[in-house]
């Protein structure tokens, strides 16, 4: 009896997982689909192809991708040392540091964006990739740091010590041992950073000043436009990279465990 309900649960879960994609697919590839037809009466891929090859879309894609990648790499580079210290050492300003990292996760991007908007305007960083990258770092860096520090709090530095004692150089140790040991956490941290940057709307809007157009922004304008086909098309474009990346790193996610909240 229990087993049957479990299977039902699984089915429902998978259905919910697929449903949005299915829905988007229906709309994106439909030509004629008037109420009350349950399925499109005419299918075409031409609208979708048109959208995806449209220069605005390709520009948006490349903007989103490059933005997310830069932000991710920077988060990792900057966040790694901080996470290491936070996770392994006890020092006097620890709670303060923790607090500084914590607040940006709580304060909404809305407020952050609005505040930085004015400042960046004055500094001339508004409308630049540089400014947007900086802005994105505010939410992504803390998540990266907390994820990695969680990994480090479970990390046994004796492995590195062992290698050191056996004569290996610090760089070698880092590359061959440390990275391998924290790899799952590293993957998860970069995944988070990427996703956060990829899905940012407000920050890009407020700092980008209309010059930096990313997929979320194209998506939003499609929504206000009201055409379900283009809405669905952009949604598919938006969702594809996250789905792919999560599928690729799925096994690291199981190792890692549950939510970030657990880290602290």
């Amino acid at each position, binding site marked *: 009896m229990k087993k049957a309900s479990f299977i039902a649960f699984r089915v429902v879960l998978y259905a919910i997982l697929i449903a949005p994609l299915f829905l988007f697919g229906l709309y994106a590839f439909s030509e004629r689909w008037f109420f009350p*037809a349950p399925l499109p009466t005419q299918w075409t891929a031409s609208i979708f192809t048109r959208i995806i090859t449209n220069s605005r879309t390709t520009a948006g894609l490349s903007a989103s991708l490059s933005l997310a990648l830069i932000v991710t790499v920077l988060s990792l580079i900057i966040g790694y040392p901080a996470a290491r210290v936070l996770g392994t050492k006890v020092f006097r300003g620890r709670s303060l540091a923790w607090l500084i990292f914590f607040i940006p996760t709580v304060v909404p991007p809305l407020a952050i964006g609005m505040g930085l908007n004015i400042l960046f305007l004055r500094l001339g960083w508004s409308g630049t990739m540089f400014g947007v990258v900086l802005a994105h770092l505010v939410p992504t860096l803390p998540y990266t740091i907390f994820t990695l520090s969680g990994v480090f709090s479970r990390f046994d530095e004796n492995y590195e010590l062992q290698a050191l004692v056996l004569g290996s150089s610090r760089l070698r140790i880092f590359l061959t041992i440390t990275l391998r040991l924290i790899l799952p956490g590293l993957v998860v941290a970069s995944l988070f950073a990427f996703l956060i940057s990829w899905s940012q709307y407000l920050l890009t809007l407020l700092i980008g000043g209309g010059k930096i157009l990313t997929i979320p922004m194209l998506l939003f304008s499609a929504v206000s436009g009201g055409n379900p086909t283009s809405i669905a098309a952009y949604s598919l474009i938006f969702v594809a990279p996250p789905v792919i990346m999560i599928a690729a790193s799925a096994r690291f996610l199981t190792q890692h465990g549950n939510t970030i909240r657990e880290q602290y």
Partner: protein
Amino acid sequence: MAPAILIISVLFGASILFGLAQSFGMMTGTQQETISLAAYQSVFSGQGPAGREFWSSFWFSLWVATASTFFSAIGALAVAIWLSDRKKKSQQIDTLALNWNMAFPHLVWAIALLLFFSQSGFLARLSATFGFIQTPAEFPVLVLDRFGIGIIIDYVTKEIPFLTLILLAVLRSQAENLDVVAENLGASRWQQLRFVTIPQVMPALSAGSLIVFGFIFSAFEVPAILGVRYPRMLPVLALDFFLNQDLNRRAEGMVISFVITVFVIIVAILSQKQEKGTQQ
């Protein structure tokens, strides 16, 4: 590794920028260097253009956040308890839930719900096919509605997995044996739930719920997509005013944003207190 100082200064820099920016913003962003409380007055008094909508937005936001959090919490509790009953590996379901949660950010999930539940959406078409309704107008207004039902549905469906995972973590790490002990001492299944399971998860549940509550209150994307012209949730209101050409409206937008921020920080502090309170 010493570069932590570098990071902290970068971040501290970002925080200062952010704080600075706030103060600039509060000073209407013009050449005015003195702090003006005009924007505050106009918002809180309910007089100015922002003020007129402010309080109804505030209560509306509160309503949506409370309802969403409440139903998410109950849903998560039910699912977590049901899942933890199973001794074997429901690890797969956990990973699935987590992955799903991440693959569809709020933005996209809201759009999916829009396409599904709107009056000319997929569900409506299905109902028409089965003869339940004739025209789009006959389909009940589930999204883009005045009560925020669509918004609530969105948040509940997204936050239940999040909270469930938190609860499962508690139920699995702390003695699952406590249930066995309780049963051995004479407790029925219901008594076990009431006296052992629920007290065990309550701290994590309240901490998690507060996080969810704060998030919903301050989030923009979902109400922007699933909400209507009136009433609007606070973040939507804030942005609208901030983007206005008139600098006074901008200041008012900033004030609203500030209100949201303060509110959320208070909720976060409460949540942290809850969490720390459990780690005796």
